[in-house]
């Protein structure tokens, strides 16, 4: 594979992300990483469910009294939409339209940053109410689970931004196509985890 090989939409393969041996290896390695991430989040979810509304101290806070759905609903819609915009980015990657891909990735990053901003606002709000990390077993489990997801969002954003900057002048080639593809897979995975967070933590929390 020659990094400097130039492509046109006509010579661009159907599946540039797995057209090279390096791309294939990255692809299988990345799915293995997602499997490991799934186990990580599964254990954090189990911890949260076991410690939900448990003390010994700080029992004045319960999931039913603490969480507010409008904010969570807005965060959910924003993250879900950012999942779609990264699908658009990969659509343009497959069409070998570098500028459109970069633009859609930019929108994805903006939506992701908005989501993260709302999450920081939410955590800040809880801390001001007195629901800090060390408040109770419940608060620790909550912050570790949702915070780990937030850290993944931050990492995903940094990943997208780094790829966009590093490849701004290179354009799309067989070397960086797998990189963009995997970053977008990671972003979808973050959304998959959030689907369970809004269902298990927030919705099931509000109904007690």
């Amino acid at each position, binding site marked *: *594979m020659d990094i400097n090989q130039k492509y046109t939409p*006509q010579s661009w393969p159907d599946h540039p992300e797995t057209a090279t041996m390096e791309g294939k290896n990255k692809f299988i390695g990345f*799915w293995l990483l997602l499997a490991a991430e799934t186990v990580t989040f599964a254990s954090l979810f189990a911890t949260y469910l076991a410690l939900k509304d448990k003390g010994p101290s700080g029992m004045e806070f319960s999931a039913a009294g603490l969480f507010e759905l409008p904010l969570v609903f807005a965060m959910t819609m924003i993250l879900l939409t950012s999942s779609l915009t990264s699908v*658009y980015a990969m659509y343009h990657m497959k069409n070998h339209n570098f500028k459109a891909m970069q633009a859609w990735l930019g929108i994805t990053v903006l939506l992701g940053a908005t989501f993260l901003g709302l999450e920081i606002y939410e955590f800040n709000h809880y801390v001001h109410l007195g629901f800090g990390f060390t408040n109770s077993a419940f608060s620790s489990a909550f912050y570790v689970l949702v915070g780990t997801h937030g850290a993944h969002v931050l990492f995903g954003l940094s990943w997208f931004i780094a790829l966009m900057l590093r490849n701004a002048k290179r354009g799309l080639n067989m070397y960086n196509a797998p990189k963009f593809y995997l970053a977008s897979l990671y972003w979808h995975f973050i959304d*998959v985890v959030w689907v369970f967070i809004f*269902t298990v933590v927030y*919705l099931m929390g509000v109904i007690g």
Partner: protein
Amino acid sequence: MAHDTHIHVRSQAEFEYAKKKRADEMKGHLATFAIMIFLTLIAFTMVAAGFSAYLIVPIILLLAGIQVILQLYYFMHMSGKGHGMVAFFMFCGMFVAFITVLALVTIVWW
């Protein structure tokens, strides 16, 4: 990096066909997105409407499961070719997790 890729320049007809196929696929993704938004709305509405927890919990967990399948198969392209190994490992993992939970529940309950 030593693996050279054969460069195949498509004919105009092949190119138009592939492009149309991708555009159709994108329409499918848009429909998937609409379904996911709809499922999310149902989940939030049910909780806001204040139905019984015994009714809501199984339904919203089911909705979450459907959303994840849509994400995996459409947004993450698992419905496309070359995901056999991924699906194999995933189903093995789900099988082991299912057996583990089943065994634990059996031990605790009976």
